[in-house]
């Protein structure tokens, strides 16, 4: 999957959904991406700018990688999307959240982590991409097998 194909697909979808809803379809390609660097490029469209305005709440050490609580919040304005990426997972993208003007930029969930990894929060705000990073150490992996 290269970037061009993804962008073309994205444009197609964009045209389809432009009249109806601001929400795109489930981003299949992003969820199937196996390499976190390429994934982040794919989601952000370019290198996201590191931002101090993004807060990731997570344990420093997770005893059980099958259930790791992660919360992301930000003081950035006009947030349209938050994505949570676990760099070392076989499929790095855990989830993306589409926000609306009614949303408060906060989301909390529980993810699986195979091993110790950086957790990256990608935030799209005002048409730009920002990222925050936090390392979570995992003592027992949680992706089964």
């Amino acid at each position, binding site marked *: 999957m290269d970037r061009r194909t993804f962008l073309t697909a994205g444009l197609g979808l964009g045209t389809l959904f432009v009249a109806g809803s601001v929400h795109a379809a489930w981003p299949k390609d992003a969820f199937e991406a196996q390499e976190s660097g390429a994934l982040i490029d794919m989601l952000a469209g370019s290198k996201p700018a590191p931002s101090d305005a993004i807060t990731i709440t997570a344990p420093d050490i997770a005893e059980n990688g099958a259930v790791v609580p992660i919360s992301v919040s930000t003081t950035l304005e006009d947030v349209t999307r938050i994505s949570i990426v676990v760099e070392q997972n076989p*499929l790095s993208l855990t*989830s993306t*959240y589409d926000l609306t003007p009614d949303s*408060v930029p*906060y989301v*909390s*969930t529980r993810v*699986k982590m195979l091993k110790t990894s950086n957790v990256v929060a990608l935030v799209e705000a005002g048409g730009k991409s920002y990222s925050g990073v936090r390392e979570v150490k995992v003592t027992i992996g949680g*992706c089964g097998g």
Partner: protein
Amino acid sequence: MAGSMRVRAKEKDGVVTVKALITHPMETGLRKDGDGNVIPAHFIQEVTATVGGEVVFTANWGTGVAKNPYLSFKYKGSKGDLLTLAWTDNQGHSDALEVEVK
């Protein structure tokens, strides 16, 4: 898959905090059973929150979300809102629940 969700929504200072627990296996499709057969992927792909027919929040999930998922988010709303939370998984199952914001 009725009865798969527990949802609470509480308003404070014009902001509604929604907390939800969903019962779901969230199978990755990477695991094998005792006989070495791959367990097929089975996971929730989309969770949508609607108030008065308008979508306020959408979650797109992959296989990296933990089993029996927990989700919390916030939106600008008020007490008495009727909030509907609905999910769909990759095998076409779905469930929805309406709660009143407290």
